[in-house]
């Protein structure tokens, strides 16, 4: 039964366009956008879809953009979002205005007092960020990181709980080598004043895409949790970063382990490198109706020898 070629509505085209953009791999949304525009052949629909899709993509990929004025990078995340296109950079106490579709910073302005945490909170935030920056400079050479206060930023002193989020984002784009990748880590830190404990919940997500004459993607993620004592700003900062470093080191080691196992063990579940006989398959010269029986016999004999060795 032949299918009728029905014209898609603008609404449907927009939905499809958004899907393509949001699912683009790390670092590839502009390439996807270009191909998508060709296929869509409708700039109005594209622009509407892009206006919605790009912010979602940018925030989920924790992209970082250069700030005008040489202040370094600013992360675009939901934790630092003040308004639709305004993002706080806690490191320099500034706010950037961003063009999501072009993925650039348009302007930068100092943050207002209302947008910043109280001095008590800032003491903790600043100490943690300073320690974090040292760690990130070693572990993520081309990445960016920041510490945001997501709850209780106006707390004046001890006696209340508050929450921070540590964001680490590193991306490597090598389009000429057909390879792109990203490492994203988000650590939620709950400062529990009542029990004098910090509760950490971390989530790491790693992606890589290699597509020279093919298309292979890695998608790995892991969650973990830990806790430490609620101390003064400097001691807390050291303790927290120590935990983060340890967990992320462990994760890196486990990723290496997964790759190591892949070649010898895991891949075998799909296809062995060679049969149990450790020789190639005995394709014979054809004597048609005997061929299968001959092969089966040869393999059975081979298998008996190998059963003890297997």
């Amino acid at each position, binding site marked *: 039964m032949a299918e009728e070629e029905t014209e898609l509505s603008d609404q449907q085209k927009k939905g499809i366009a958004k*899907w393509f953009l949001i699912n683009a*791999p790390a670092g590839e949304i502009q390439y996807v956008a270009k191909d998508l525009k060709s296929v869509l052949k409708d700039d109005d629909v594209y622009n509407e879809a892009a206006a919605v899709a790009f912010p979602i993509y940018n925030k989920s990929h924790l992209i970082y953009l250069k700030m005008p004025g040489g202040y370094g990078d600013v992360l675009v995340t939901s934790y630092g979002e003040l308004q639709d296109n305004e993002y706080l950079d806690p490191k320099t106490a500034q706010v950037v205005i961003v063009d999501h579709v072009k993925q650039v910073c348009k302007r930068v302005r100092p943050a207002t007092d209302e947008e910043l945490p109280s001095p008590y909170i800032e003491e903790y935030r600043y100490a943690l960020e300073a320690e974090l920056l040292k760690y990130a400079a070693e*572990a993520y050479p081309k990445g960016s990181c920041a510490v945001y206060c997501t709850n209780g930023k106006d707390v004046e002193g001890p006696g209340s709980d508050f929450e921070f989020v540590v964001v680490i984002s590193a991306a490597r784009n090598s389009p000429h080598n057909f390879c792109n990748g990203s490492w994203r880590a988000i650590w939620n830190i709950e400062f529990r004043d009542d029990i004098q404990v910090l509760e950490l919940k971390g989530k790491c997500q790693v992606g890589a895409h290699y597509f020279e004459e093919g298309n292979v993607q890695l998608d790995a993620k892991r969650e973990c949790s830990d806790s430490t004592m609620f101390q003064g700003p400097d001691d807390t900062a050291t303790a927290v970063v120590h935990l983060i470093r340890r967990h992320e080191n462990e994760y890196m080691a486990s990723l290496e382990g997964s790759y190591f196992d892949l070649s010898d063990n895991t891949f075998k579940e799909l296809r062995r490198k060679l049969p149990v006989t450790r020789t190639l398959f005995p394709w014979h010269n054809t004597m048609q109706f005997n061929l299968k029986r001959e092969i*089966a016999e040869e393999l059975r004999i081979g298998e008996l020898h190998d059963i003890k060795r297997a």
Partner: protein
Amino acid sequence: MEAAMGLMRRMPPRHSETTLSALLSLLPGHASDLLSQVDLPLQVLSDVDSGKKFILCEYNRDADSYRSPWSNKYHPPLDDAPYPSSKLRQMEIEANDIFTVYCEQYYEGGISSVYMWEDDNEGLVACFLVKKDGSKTGQGRRGYLEEGTWDAIHVIEVGPEEEITRYCLTSTVMLSLTTDDVSSGTFSLSGSIRRQMNMNLPVADGHLSNMGKMIEEMEAKLRNSLDQVYFGKTREMVCNLRPPNEVVQMRLPTS
């Protein structure tokens, strides 16, 4: 069309079906090009006579029915459908039997099918397909994989029979695997590659033997390429993003 293929190469391989169906709805005029150039994970049906599974593809399809290599019947039944000649059907039966043994050896299970038909140039075309589910709930013998699939499609065009005959093989492998445990989280690799190989071989050695050896060589190359090159590049990228621990430890100041 080039843009469409570009999108296929960038979208996550796990979503290849959604990607293709999105492209088909945006580019209805290019449907036949898209369907012939894009491979999707293989579908399977059970033979009405024996219950044995067989793989569905363009090469055993007519209208909405598919021919089983086991019973030679179309599912669902179809009038006026094309069948291979009886001579070719004999070769097809033998090929299926031998390929089943081959798959047992390399895939420790899996589903296989071979389809053959005469082409217009007095040659023949054969399609060898394999589908393996390596997950621990499927046919994974060692229980490593939460999820794992390997789909291989090999299409061989055999030139007109001469003393030395030309064989042209186009192979596609699609795979995905996921391991999942509490300490390392979820680790997922997926992808697809396609390669071609042409050989001129003595017809006296037998078509099946010639085709079989080519497929075995090609599968080894593809498996190796996926493992060393493709997975290897993603591993390299991870190490670039976060240099492995020894390097980090060395550079940290003692405190």
